[in-house]
């Protein structure tokens, strides 16, 4: 371009943002600016509106049966958490209402950065513990709100896993942590039983299909006898996906 043209630049930048072609650093800078720039917001909204019809070119993909229940649990957890923001051990009143600012990059973390974390963690753990064989799979279970790692699952082979606590967790009175897993193509998660906070646990998955890449693991807070329905009902405390190493 011969001469920078302010308004044009703004609209092109907004367009590139909507198309998704900005590299991540520029995307983040753009989003930071967008929050307080009404002109930019208008430019973005205009591009979103122009391009939206072209989402029709992608085929719909029916979500798994598990997705909505998971969303619903997160909604409930969000509501519970925002009202009991204080100490972790405080009982959670059942009051609805949200506002938890930014909890969502977390999932991105699980999906994307989780890989890096898992690999780094894998290296660390194999150095620390005396696992004889190199684990084939690794899962780092993160706390959704804080994104801090709470547990690690290591699998030396595809039928045997070890759940290792990275810290303690205070379970409210009358509650327990229940361990679940679900591979991508399963209809619903399967309970792996209750776990004791701070205690490692070794499990054989004899009755389950072999562990696979991307398999989901999570710990939810349930009644102390475990979920009454056989499916997770309480808030997710820790969650992560298996990474093959």
């Amino acid at each position, binding site marked *: *371009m011969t001469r920078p043209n302010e308004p044009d630049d703004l609209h*092109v930048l907004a*367009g*590139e943002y909507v*198309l*998704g*072609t900005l*590299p*991540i*650093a520029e*995307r983040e800078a753009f989003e930071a600016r967008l929050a307080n720039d009404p002109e930019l917001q*208008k430019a973005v*909204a205009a591009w*979103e*509106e*122009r391009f*939206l*019809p*072209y*989402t029709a*070119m*992608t085929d*719909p*993909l029916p*979500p*798994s*049966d598990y*997705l*909505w*229940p*998971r969303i*619903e649990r997160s*909604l409930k957890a*969000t509501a519970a958490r925002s009202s009991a923001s204080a100490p972790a051990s405080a009982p959670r009143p059942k009051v609805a*209402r*949200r*506002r*938890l600012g930014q*909890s*969502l990059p977390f*999932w*991105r973390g*699980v999906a*994307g*950065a989780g890989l890096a974390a898992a690999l780094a963690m894998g290296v660390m753990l194999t150095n620390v513990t005396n696992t004889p064989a190199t684990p084939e799979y690794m899962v780092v279970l993160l706390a959704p709100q804080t994104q801090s790692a709470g547990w690690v699952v290591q699998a030396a082979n595809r039928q045997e896993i070890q759940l290792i606590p990275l810290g303690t967790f205070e379970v409210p009175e009358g509650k327990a942590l229940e361990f679940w897993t679900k591979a*991508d193509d399963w*209809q619903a998660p*399967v*309970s*792996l*039983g*209750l*776990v*004791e906070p701070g205690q490692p646990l070794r*499990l054989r*998955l004899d009755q389950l299909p072999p562990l696979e890449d991307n398999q989901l693991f999570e710990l939810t807070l349930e009644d102390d006898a*475990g979920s009454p*329905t*056989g*499916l997770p009902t309480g808030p997710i405390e820790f969650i992560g996906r298996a990474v093959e190493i």
Partner: protein
Amino acid sequence: MLTGSAATDIGALPGSEDVSDSDMSETGKVKTINAESRGSQPTHEFDYADALARCARGEHAALQQLYQHEGAKLLGVVYRIVKDRGMAEDIVHDACLNIWQRADSFDPQKGAARTWIFSIARHLALNAIRGRDREVSVDLNDPHELDDDDTFQQASRVADAFDWQTGQRMDECLQQLETERRNCVLHAYVDGLSHAEIAAHTGAPLGTVKAWIKRSLLRLRECMA
């Protein structure tokens, strides 16, 4: 504590009874409006703005209806971008929570509710894959970024990579772009491809792709003005 392998057989799960339909009936609100999507949709339209308003008031059922109405489309759009089923579902999960939490900030003056909803999901997907680009740390800074967008001429006639006619006004503007440029724009929007990926995919030099997209955006905007 019943620790140990309490693994249930997956087929025998009592779970399929499901929570999904529990509180649907009370607010099953479908309105007939046409303003929101002027496209090829039937006239019996879901009221997105109303669903968002009810989300803002804390009605789970509103989000559930939205999900039932658009979940598959949202997942389709996100999956096309991230190309990983598990990750796509994670993102739709995030998008729903995001929609829920931000519903009270939705302003119908600034745009259509359906656009707002899809934008949230798309941008989460884009953040996820662009973040992945960073991890892989491919530095795509191209020293030869070209200003001249005519440097690259494909010898053969380029075919349309998309069946992009939607019946919207924007079609006319896309129509005015050269096919290879239109392809670049749609590879970005629909497939979530980065400049470098588009370059690899189309065989055009990276600098050319960047220039094409910039110029195309300017032309599209002019055309839509």
